[in-house]
């Protein structure tokens, strides 16, 4: 994502006027005081940026973007013609719709800046497009949003990894980007078991399965972008699958696979379900390859939370009520929070979470915002969405849970 223009100040007004064709937004400008401008202009340049935009835009914000609209014009004689016009519109967002598979963000709302084609108050749905500028106006830019912008503009973080987790008869082909894990394809084939007399049905089923996996890798993995392809499975499925792919590639003279042979990485996983990706991302061999991606660090953090819960239960808490209380006591060392909580419709609730994040930071704590698209984020989301590792044990919290707050 590229930041084109920004004129905001933390929590209110203030402005940075800054024009540059590429990123590197300069945060030292933030304190320059101006008034009444709270606009950021961004250019998304990869599909992942749509995810950031999705997390950035909330209901009630205004978005200006170029779009195509069908316009009906009536001539003097009364005959009407309709044609499609490209125009720039500003809408006040009412509903936000994110398609995870296609990575498309749709914003629906009323037009607030009249132009020659579209009346004021007319509904329009903006499809945010790649490589086209859009400007976002927020009544209030809080720290979480600003951090998101920063993160979105950071080019170093982007490193894509493809991972196939499988077991006999089940495979999930996933694409791991810094802030998303996308399941591109799920393959579920019943493989007959071995039985006395005819084992060939079993072998045939397996081959069919491997073929499906291979086709799906070819279709969904872009070897130009992807750093490595992880094949993970229990037992020997991964080895057999790799063997099958290479054999078939040699037979069919598939250059693409043969050239990228070195990108394949075989790792152990306990099952073919999506959440075993967690194990895969903890594997040292994988870590060495993908080093500092968000996905891996999140998994590690969550794991440390669980370990703490096991060893010193009084130092690890989850649920908003507990975490709030711990924060009041300035006890939070690491706060883990799911970005889903910031997407919530309720502005007051969002504000609560933002204050929590801010105050933890102020007190010298570490805050990690988990992406709800990763497996670890999914798990955190199930775990009320917020969890914390404390600096010192607070056993009094543990005893005090009467009517639990996590009834959400």
């Amino acid at each position, binding site marked *: 994502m590229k930041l084109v223009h920004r004129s905001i100040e933390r929590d209110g007004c203030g402005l940075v006027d800054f024009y540059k064709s590429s990123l590197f937004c300069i945060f030292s400008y933030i304190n320059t005081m101006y008034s009444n401008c709270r606009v950021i202009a961004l250019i998304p340049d990869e599909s992942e940026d749509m995810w950031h935009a999705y997390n950035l835009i909330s209901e009630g914000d205004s978005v200006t973007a170029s779009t195509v609209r069908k316009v009906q014009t009536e001539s003097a004689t009364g005959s009407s013609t309709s044609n499609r016009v490209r125009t720039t519109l500003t809408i006040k967002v009412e509903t936000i719709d994110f398609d995870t598979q296609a990575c498309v963000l749709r914003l629906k709302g009323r037009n607030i800046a009249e132009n020659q084609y579209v009346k004021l108050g007319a509904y329009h749905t903006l499809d945010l497009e790649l490589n086209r500028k859009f400007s976002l106006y927020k009544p209030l830019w809080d720290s979480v949003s600003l951090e998101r912008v920063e993160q979105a503009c950071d080019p170093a973080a982007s490193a894509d990894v493809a991972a196939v987790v499988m077991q006999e008869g089940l495979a999930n082909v996933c694409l791991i980007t810094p802030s998303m894990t996308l399941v591109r394809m799920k393959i579920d084939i*019943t493989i007959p*078991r071995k039985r006395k007399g005819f*084992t060939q*049905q079993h072998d045939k089923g397996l081959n069919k399965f491997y073929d499906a996996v291979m086709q799906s890798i070819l279709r969904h993995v872009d070897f130009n972008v992807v750093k490595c392809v992880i094949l993970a499975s229990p037992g020997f499925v991964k080895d057999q699958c790799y063997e099958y792919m290479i054999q078939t590639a040699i037979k069919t003279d598939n250059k693409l696979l043969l050239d990228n042979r070195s990108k394949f990485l075989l790792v152990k996983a306990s*099952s073919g379900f999506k959440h075993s990706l967690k194990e895969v991302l903890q594997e040292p061999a994988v870590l060495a390859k993908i080093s500092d991606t968000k996905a891996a660090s999140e998994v590690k953090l969550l794991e440390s939370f*669980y370990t703490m819960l096991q060893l010193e239960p009084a130092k690890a808490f989850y649920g908003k009520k507990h975490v709030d209380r711990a924060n009041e006591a300035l006890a939070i060392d690491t706060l883990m929070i799911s970005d889903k909580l910031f997407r919530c419709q309720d502005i007051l609730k969002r504000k609560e979470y933002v204050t929590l994040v801010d105050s933890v930071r102020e007190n010298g704590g570490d805050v990690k915002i988990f992406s709800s698209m990763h497996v670890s984020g*999914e798990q955190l989301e199930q*775990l*009320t969405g917020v969890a914390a590792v404390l600096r010192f044990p607070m056993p009094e919290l543990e005893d005090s849970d009467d009517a639990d707050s996590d009834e959400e």
Partner: protein
Amino acid sequence: MARHRNVRNRSYSDDYDYDDVYGHSVEEDSCLSPNDSSQWLFDRTRNSQAIAHFLDSHDDIQEEVEEDTSMSSPSALQRGESIDLRSLDLSEEDEAKLMSCLDELRNVLGDTVSESVLIKSVLHHKFDFNKALDDILNSKSKENTKTEVPKLPLVVIEPAKAPVIATVNTPKVIVQNLEPKTLGIIKGFKVGKDEGPSSRPGTPREQSPCTERSKEQSTEKVKAKENKASALSQYTKERALDKEHLYIVVIGHVDAGKSTLMGRLLCDLGEVSQKTLHKYEQESKKIGKQSFMYAWVLDETGEERVRGITMDVGRAQFETKTKKVVILDAPGHADFIPNMITGAGQADVALLVIDATRGEFESGFDFGGQTREHALLVRSLGVSQLAVAVNKLDTSNWSQERFDEITKKLKAFLKQAGFKDSDVTYVPCSGLNGENLVKPPSEPELLKWYKGLCLLDVIDKFSVPDRPISKPLRMSINDVFKGTGSGFCVAGRIENGMISKGDKVIVCPTKEAADVRGVSINDMSSNVAFAGDQVIVTLSGVDMQNVSVGYILSDPVQQVPVTTRFEARIVVFNVKVPITKGYPILIHYQSLVESAHIVKLKAQLNKTTGELVKKKPRVLGNNSVAVVEIEVSKPICIEKYKDVKELGRVMLRVAGVTIAAGLVTDIMST
């Protein structure tokens, strides 16, 4: 009138069948109970006096008189006296009174008394309902005492008995009667009456009066009922002469010698021909793994032989003195525990194989080895009898100390796992040498101290658990494959009930109906199979694509519940990471593996007393017992533990380790 006789011959088993099942009241299948429906729903057959107006031949009644010969005279007489309302010459008002009285009476008596008797007594008592009722009841009891009317099923109220009695006399009677006698339209109604309030309450209107069809239906139905109700008797008939079937799963740490032990056992029993054995010997020599020659009897795929480990459950059978034993050879490798669970879920008893070699036992038993996990798993899967084969004892020269050392350690552990001491037998043996397997030991070192039985006799001494044959059909599918001929085959174990050729079954959770084309047990085709059997069923009527491993074949009427959310009482094993809310897990349920997560921790219980320790605990640690709610990502078929034991057990696994075992306590409707 034609219908009177049918009152008697109604197959009452239909009515009462519902009560056989726990938690399944009549109301669930129809909005009204048969009683209510008779009260509130219009029933054409009921008011057939109106129809009588349209029939010229009241003479038809005469035909009814001669019943089957077994009928005693008084009842026949009774019938002959059946009265046509029109013949009574009542005023309209009286007729209305009469009708209302009849209705009331029927409410009380049901269809137990013929209409003519009712009408007569009502008229006799001048439309006084109470008196008429008294009169009828009195006369009925008298009649019952003095005549030997073939026991009317209607008298029987206890649901349990009803079906049995029904099969004793009624069905045959119906079939015989219908054929020669009843022609003409009346019969259509009659059959309607016959079926109406029974299995499909309130639907007689839908019944076409077409004679042919209804006749067929009723016969078919009767047959079906007969089958079902007499499942038990059929079972005893079919299996009385046969040896009892026993399914035994062989478990243990990887390389404990499970396959070799079983291979050797089969060879010694003569189940494997010399020729094949010789072939295996030659081939295994060729790749330098001669010690695997016996294991090859069970490990058949090339993959397994090359790697020298079992990957999927192998199966074989042999006979002992009193039993037909099917062995399920489970893989010992940690990666294949899902397969092992599939195997163990089908077994009645287990054989735990221990490698007695110094160092091997320790590594397999102490933390990280599969010995513990396997034993815990089979126990949690409901296996209570266990034989422990202390294998490879020849490596320590049949030393008693070693044997005692191992058994001592195991005893403590198995007791903790929930096995009774009396249900566990320890046998020293050697799989490769065949020592103490089929014949009593010959090794002098062993003879010095071992006085017990050989392995085969231990297996023979296992008792076969009770098979729930009379419950509705449940069969879990663990394999789907193309068979020879039309249709496709599913393999699995019948947990409940029985299945026979020609049955209609429902494939759950997709709820598709299928026909059973064929049944075979242990590769022998058979007409029926009962609970506890491992069968291969040929299905037609559903697409092979739509059936997958882990599905359940269910009785069409009493279907297995399908849900995505259920409550379970779990026992947490040794876990590295504690269980919290939202914890992602894999559930292993029969052969099904599905991802799920724990949505709620409801309560933590005391391990021994089951008392509530803490409501809504934050986290579940090692060795705790708790009630949790689990949500599965896809709908699955599941039963409460108290309804069907076999289908009420789940295993929870994370990252290749079993973290908990649970019993289903409640099923949330979704």
